[in-house]
């Protein structure tokens, strides 16, 4: 940056930006929340007798949560840049270097650090935490469903666990690729020194931390007893925990929009010299498609929750039929976000495996153009299919047929992704590693998830299947069987670049087989009970569903064991794994050309690119 006048740089240790970190943020957030809560308790008028809905408690809760959010973001230092700018003094070079975490060691992971590699690691840690929490809830659910009849959890607690598991896993899977790998790997892969907007990058991460607290807070004031979709009018009669959900979604949606703007700009503007669109790695396409799809989707999610908050706290009736609103409005808003969102999760996973396929088969990616067509086709169509979640809503029976058409059309671009993966494997030389086997696992799981998706997209079949465990099994096959498989493969594949050490081979294999076998056992059992007529989100079921549920529970415990092995693998390999060479997989993308530890701005001299990264295999004589 250019400074016209050399302003005196504040002495080290004095500037406020050097004092702010996670702990000041937590403290300021907690204090603000407490102060606002106390003030609101004091001054907010009591609800008048005889009003239809009591809203004072919701007002107090929401205000406290907003205060937490503002306090936390101020305490972490998110406002320093804008504040200085408004005052006409931009940050000095040294301060920018400080923000980037120059020479700071481990401390930078607890600050508003702008270096994309730090943000990538932060995302990796928080994704792991989210999966750990969400996974623990899955285990509670499966344990509760171990036998017929009511479980040992109170129904309200059970519903809340189901809802929290759902929303945690959705958020975890949304950020699992674009967070850790989109931030750490992507800029290096395109030959950039950092993201286009480094401060927005830090903002996107700390917004997720700020969002997490209201969700956890909500668990102690009634929980999310509505399932992760939080349909109205059930949500408007839900306890105060619902306000935690609303705040969580609003803040998370902002984070997603920020990521979308940042990653898209970075890829469009900052690719290395010579990296034309035809030479840009397919993983980049996947990442951009994912965040670009989230850009229009998440504002709608944000909006849907704002209206929900209004209904709860201010007594408006957007979703209340008695006051002229409609629950169908909420359903529409929710699924206009909700269907693109599943492709936000899936596309980067498939793209990451496409990136690995040439490396582990030692041959070029088959049909790069078809891969892009597939990604583009899915992205485009995914905006037009939302009402297939509402076939049985009764909202507009005449629209069922058109939505059935758009939904089934998605099978064509999805088929293209299969073609690219299978075509790349065909006659390749298989280098048997966990990421390679993940491609086969994805093909298997995604095939089952995709074909069952066709059954569900068919309106008459959906009249039987909708709302049953069959749906639950179907989307676990796509989001977990396909999506998460790609993310775990990415972890093992990019682990050497992110940590400087190889991921323990044996542990990666053990966890791979445990997770994949456990997964298929668990969800085949769930398909069975769904077909036999067990509804979703029930805490008690008839004895006829015993076998299938038992199978699912056994499978779930196997997944848990496999995941713990993986976690052990991450920790042990990170601490004392084999030191990785610069390019352990002998891949041709740019991220493998930088040494470890990666210097602050990645490249001394920015690279130039003269071919795509898939030039494996001997050319024809």
């Amino acid at each position, binding site marked *: 940056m250019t400074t016209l006048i050399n302003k005196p740089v504040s002495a080290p240790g004095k500037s406020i930006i050097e004092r702010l970190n996670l702990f000041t943020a937590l403290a300021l957030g907690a204090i603000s929340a407490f102060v606002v809560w106390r003030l609101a308790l004091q001054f907010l008028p009591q609800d008048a007798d005889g009003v239809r809905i009591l809203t004072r408690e919701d007002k107090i809760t929401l205000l406290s949560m907003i205060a937490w959010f503002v306090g936390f973001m101020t305490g972490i230092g998110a406002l320093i840049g804008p504040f200085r700018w408004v005052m006409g003094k931009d940050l000095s070079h040294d301060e920018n270097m400080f923000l980037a975490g120059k020479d700071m060691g481990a401390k930078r992971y607890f600050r508003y650090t702008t270096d994309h590699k730090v943000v990538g690691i932060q995302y990796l840690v928080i994704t792991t935490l989210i999966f750990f929490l969400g996974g623990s809830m899955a285990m509670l659910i499966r344990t509760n469903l171990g036998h017929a009849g*009511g479980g040992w959890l109170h*129904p*309200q607690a059970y519903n809340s666990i189901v809802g929290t598991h759902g929303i945690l896993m959705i958020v975890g899977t949304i950020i699992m690729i674009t967070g850790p790998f989109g931030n750490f790997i992507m800029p290096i892969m395109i030959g950039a020194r950092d993201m286009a907007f480094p401060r927005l990058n830090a903002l996107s991460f700390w917004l997720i931390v700020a969002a997490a607290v209201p969700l956890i807070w909500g668990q102690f004031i009634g929980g999310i*007893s509505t399932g992760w979709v939080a*349909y109205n*009018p059930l949500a408007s*009669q839900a306890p105060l925990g619902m306000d935690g959900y609303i705040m969580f979604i609003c803040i998370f949606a902002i984070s997603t929009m920020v990521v979308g703007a940042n990653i898209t700009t970075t890829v469009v503007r900052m690719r290395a010299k010579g990296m034309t669109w035809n030479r840009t790695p397919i993983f980049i396409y996947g990442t951009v498609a994912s965040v670009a799809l989230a850009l229009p989707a998440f504002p709608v999610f944000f909006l849907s929750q704002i209206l929900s908050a209004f209904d709860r706290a201010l007594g408006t009736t957007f979703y209340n*039929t008695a006051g002229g609103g409609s629950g169908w409005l909420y359903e529409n808003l929710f699924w206009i976000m909700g269907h693109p969102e599943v492709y936000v999760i899936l596309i980067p996973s498939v793209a990451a495996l496409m990136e690995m396929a040439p490396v582990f*088969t*030692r*041959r*070029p990616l*088959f*049909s*790069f153009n*078809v891969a892009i067509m597939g990604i583009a086709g899915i992205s485009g169509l995914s905006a037009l299919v939302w009402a297939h979640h509402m076939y*049985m*809503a*009764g909202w507009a029976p005449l629209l*069922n*047929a058109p939505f*059935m058409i758009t939904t*089934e059309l998605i*099978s064509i671009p999805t088929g*293209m992704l299969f*073609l690219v993966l*299978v075509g790349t*494997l*065909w*006659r390749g*030389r*298989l*280098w*048997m590693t966990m990421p390679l086997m993940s491609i*086969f696992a994805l*093909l298997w799981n995604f095939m089952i998830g995709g*074909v069952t998706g*066709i059954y569900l997209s*068919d309106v*008459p*079949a959906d*009249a*039987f299947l909708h*709302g049953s465990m069959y749906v639950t099994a179907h989307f676990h096959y796509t989001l977990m069987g396909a999506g998460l498989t790609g993310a775990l493969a990415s972890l093992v594949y990019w682990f050497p670049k992110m940590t400087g050490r190889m991921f323990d081979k044996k542990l990666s294999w053990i966890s791979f087989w445990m997770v994949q076998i456990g997964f298929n056992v668990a969800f085949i059992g769930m*398909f069975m009970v769904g*077909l*036999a*007529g067990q*509804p*979703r989100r029930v805490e*008690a*079921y008839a004895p006829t569903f015993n076998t299938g549920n038992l199978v699912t529970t056994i499978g779930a415990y196997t997944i848990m064991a496999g995941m713990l092995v993986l976690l052990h693998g991450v920790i042990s390999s990170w601490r004392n794994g084999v030191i990785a060479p610069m390019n352990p997989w*002998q891949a041709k993308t740019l991220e493998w050309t930088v040494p470890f530890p990666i210097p602050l701005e990645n490249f001394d001299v920015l690279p130039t690119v003269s071919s795509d990264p*898939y*030039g*494996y*295999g*001997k*050319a*024809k004589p």
Partner: protein
Amino acid sequence: MSDVMTPKTPQWWKKPDVKKTAILWVICTAVIGFVGVAFHVRSMVRPASETMASVINLMRIFTWAAAPVAGLVAAMCITVLTSGRHYGNNPPAEADHEIRNSPRTVAAWVTISGILCLFALVVGMIVLQKDSQAVLDKSAIQVNVTGQQWVWNFDYANGARSQDLYLPVNKPVVFHVTSVDVMHSFWIVQMGIKINANPGYITETAVTPDKIGVFDIRCAELCGILHSYMQTKVHVVSQADYDAWLASQAATEAKA
């Protein structure tokens, strides 16, 4: 694989790995089709209406339509996995060809997936058309269904009310479904029909039960604490039994 460098390259369909894949394709398709259909049909409830029977039939058709595609992917994966795996810390030699694209393969793949997609659509549309016309049947028995946390109430044309549904066999029925509090979903499991119950709106669905017996009604939309217990039964009886029940129920209702 090894014959690529022979002076005269055989036509592609004569290459050993293609032949192997072709055989595997047939086997995989058959296995996936039979296992898939058996899994679905055996797991599913026995149908108590033509609607449900046609749902089971659709699953059968879709599974067989998907089987060749899944079978091809499986066959190619097996062929690849059984020829030349490489273990070790260093990559294997690079593949001995550099095929980056095959327009013919892509065209064939997209055409076939397009045709299969169209087929699934047409089959689905035919059934959908039939199901949606059933709702318009004016001569059908009309039953009003009201969901509330956490019971179902049924109102019949002659003023009878009940919390267990009674229907005569082989007579078309139209349900007018609504709710008094939150959203529920009215699902007669063995008859393969479902429609949400929304407060303030009436939604409709129709069915013709074709078996005498007792079947399950479950709520299929999370509706609060006791959602799991929001279940009841439908008793499908002969016309005579139905008339008798209806009359006695209406009399009880009138007295109350």
